């Protein structure tokens, strides 16, 4: 029997949200935390969808999803009042699907999809998987079937990859870029002497020979065909931009107490702020699950074994235990100073209003099953959020 999860801490924060975006550098537990937030909300009675972009498909295993990406799949949560559906992002599939949907005719879509340079140009346009994740998010939100959609974002060293994606695609579509693509010689603009043109052709044909692709012809053809799907892309990019900045969209920044990650996380946070949205919660993962408040003094070292039957107790076990405790105490101080540096860094970047601060324990082993995710969801329920200023 899974107890109901009531709104408090992180769970409370996402209570009136429609979208929760989990952000952060790679390897900090975004996927798992996103799943746990989604599970917690589903246990609390919401109809929830979780979108993961993880190429290693960890969430897929944890949520017991079948093979294959790109479709919503119901996750069995016995005794939950709400429901949970999960979707593994198929970035390539999303873009192909968009082209099919936005192209005026099926033939036009097939021409674009069949172009040898389509995949690469599509990638350059989209920036990264980030844009595909946002496209997919918009689709899920638009179904109207869910109270809450939780998104796990691709590992990125820059938050801007995510927030810039719609702007980038709009800027490109609004610029003359497509015309230039259709006629690469125009890149040279003013430098349009015959020599310049000759050299440019030489370079481009060199690239053609290198790749074995008839690059100029393919790019030109793609630009022409792509022009037909541009208005549709423009509409969607605007919708995504609005969704990212909507009142009911919450941002959760994930971090690990790793000394080298501090700079990345603080940089991430300030980029998010610059993009015009605020971070609503910071989740620090893998924090040592207990405090060693005891001063590990010499007296305790020798007294440690008192109470244990002498016959079964060895001096070496006592020594080993004390060594473990000392090591973990060192780890704890290291984590504390990283967390302090994180808080100071985030405060200095003027994260406002102050985000909820949640620390999650380093579980051993880390959850890779649905039961493990549910346990983490319960930990979220009891995790005492605190504001950075109260620290």
């Amino acid at each position, binding site marked *: 029997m899974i107890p109901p999860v009531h709104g408090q801490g992180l769970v409370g924060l996402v209570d009136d949200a429609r979208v929760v975006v989990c952000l952060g*550098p*790679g*390897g*900090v537990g975004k996927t798992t935390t996103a799943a746990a937030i989604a599970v917690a909300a589903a246990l609390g009675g919401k109809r929830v969808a979780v979108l993961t972009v993880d190429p*290693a498909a960890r969430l897929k295993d944890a949520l017991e999803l079948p093979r294959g990406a790109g479709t919503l799949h119901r996750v069995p949560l016995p005794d939950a009042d709400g429901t949970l559906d999960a979707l593994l992002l198929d970035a390539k599939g999303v873009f192909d699907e968009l082209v099919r949907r936005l192209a005026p005719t099926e033939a036009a879509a097939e021409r674009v999809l069949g172009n040898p340079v389509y995949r*690469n*140009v599509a990638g*350059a346009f989209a920036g990264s998987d980030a844009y595909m994740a946002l496209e997919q998010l918009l689709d899920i939100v638009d179904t109207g079937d869910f109270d809450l959609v939780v998104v796990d974002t691709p*590992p990125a*060293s820059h938050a801007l990859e995510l927030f810039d994606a719609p702007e980038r695609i709009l800027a*490109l579509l609004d*610029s003359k*870029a497509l015309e*230039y693509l259709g006629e*690469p010689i125009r*890149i*040279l*603009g003013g*430098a349009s002497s015959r020599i310049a043109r000759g*050299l*440019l052709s030489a*370079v*481009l044909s*060199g*690239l053609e*020979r*290198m*790749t074995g692709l008839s*690059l100029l012809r393919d*790019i030109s053809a793609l630009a022409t065909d792509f022009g037909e799907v541009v208005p549709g892309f423009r509409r969607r990019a605007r919708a995504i931009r609005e969704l990212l900045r909507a009142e009911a969209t919450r941002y959760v920044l994930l971090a*690990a107490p790793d*000394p*080298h990650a501090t*700079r*990345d996380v603080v940089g991430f946070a300030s980029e998010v702020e610059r993009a015009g949205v605020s971070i609503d919660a910071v989740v620090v993962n893998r924090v040592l*699950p*207990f405090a*060693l408040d*005891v001063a590990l003094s010499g007296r*305790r070292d020798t007294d*440690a074994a008192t*109470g*244990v*039957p002498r016959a*079964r107790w060895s001096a070496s*076990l006592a020594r*080993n*235990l*004390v*060594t*473990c*405790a000392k*090591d*973990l105490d*060192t780890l704890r*101080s*290291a984590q504390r100073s990283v967390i302090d540096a994180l808080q100071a860094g985030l405060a200095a970047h003027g994260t406002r209003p102050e985000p909820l601060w949640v620390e999650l324990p380093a579980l*051993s*082993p880390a959850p*890779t099953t649905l039961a493990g995710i549910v346990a983490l969801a319960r930990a979220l329920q009891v995790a005492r959020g605190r504001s950075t200023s109260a620290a």
Partner: protein
Amino acid sequence: MAGPRLVIVTGKGGVGKTTVAAAVAQAAVAARKRALLVEVATPGRLASVLDVPPLAAEPRQVLEGLHAVALEEGAALEDLVHGLMPLRVLSRRLLSSETFRIVAAAVPGILEAALLARVVAWLDEHDRRGRARYDVVVLDSPASGHSVPLLATPRTLSGLATVGPLGAIMRRTSRWLADPALTLALVVAIPEDWAVAEAVELYESLRDDLAIPVGRPVLNAVFPKRFSRAEAALLEEAGTSHTIDPQLLEAGRYFLARRNAAQALTRTLRSATRARPLELPFLFSTTMTWEDLGPLADALDGVLEPA
């Protein structure tokens, strides 16, 4: 001097690739080799480990025997275009165009090719006396989602490119990456299921699909063995019937659980790759600097020996 000249450190984000790459470089320096440490796509991380100002696009000596550099796609692509274009004014004009970047990105593998071409160029550099400028180049590669395409590039491109300077560079890079006397790829994981699963996948695709010489898989941040079997058993049952200082007991049990989890994953990694994992100890330290990397450098010492 024997041993690999190019060590490529790969793995999922968050497994400590930069730390391991720095430790390999430290092992090289300890063996009196001149090393170049190359950072790709994680700006600032390496400088923070080395405790030096941000790295530049040109190698800079950061310690006795050690140079470091931050390799950036844009800069590498510029190098490539400058090499191709006979006139600087034209190459600059081209590069300043956003459209050109899209056209360039449309060429499959061009950015990756530019990065690898830069690395091989450093390996080819000589000093005034005609010796290789760097005995070892250690590449802290992008997270594994990206490192397979990166390392697959020369193979893909050299098949297509039959003429021109780029074709020649790619063929040369390809030969480098395939030669076990010159190149060694290290796949790094930490004792967590997702990291090990990813490492197995990466290990297999490097070894089987790309035929790149791969070293023993590296399992980073392994809690050390602290208890004998009998002591472990005692810890498991203590607490219910006996009283040990509860905090010490908790610490001991936590340690044991982390150790056991790591051992189980070492076995998983070993049976999946059919290679004995190289375990690097968890570092219990409040800092993580060049000095702190000593135990890791010691453990990695062997990877620099001839295959």
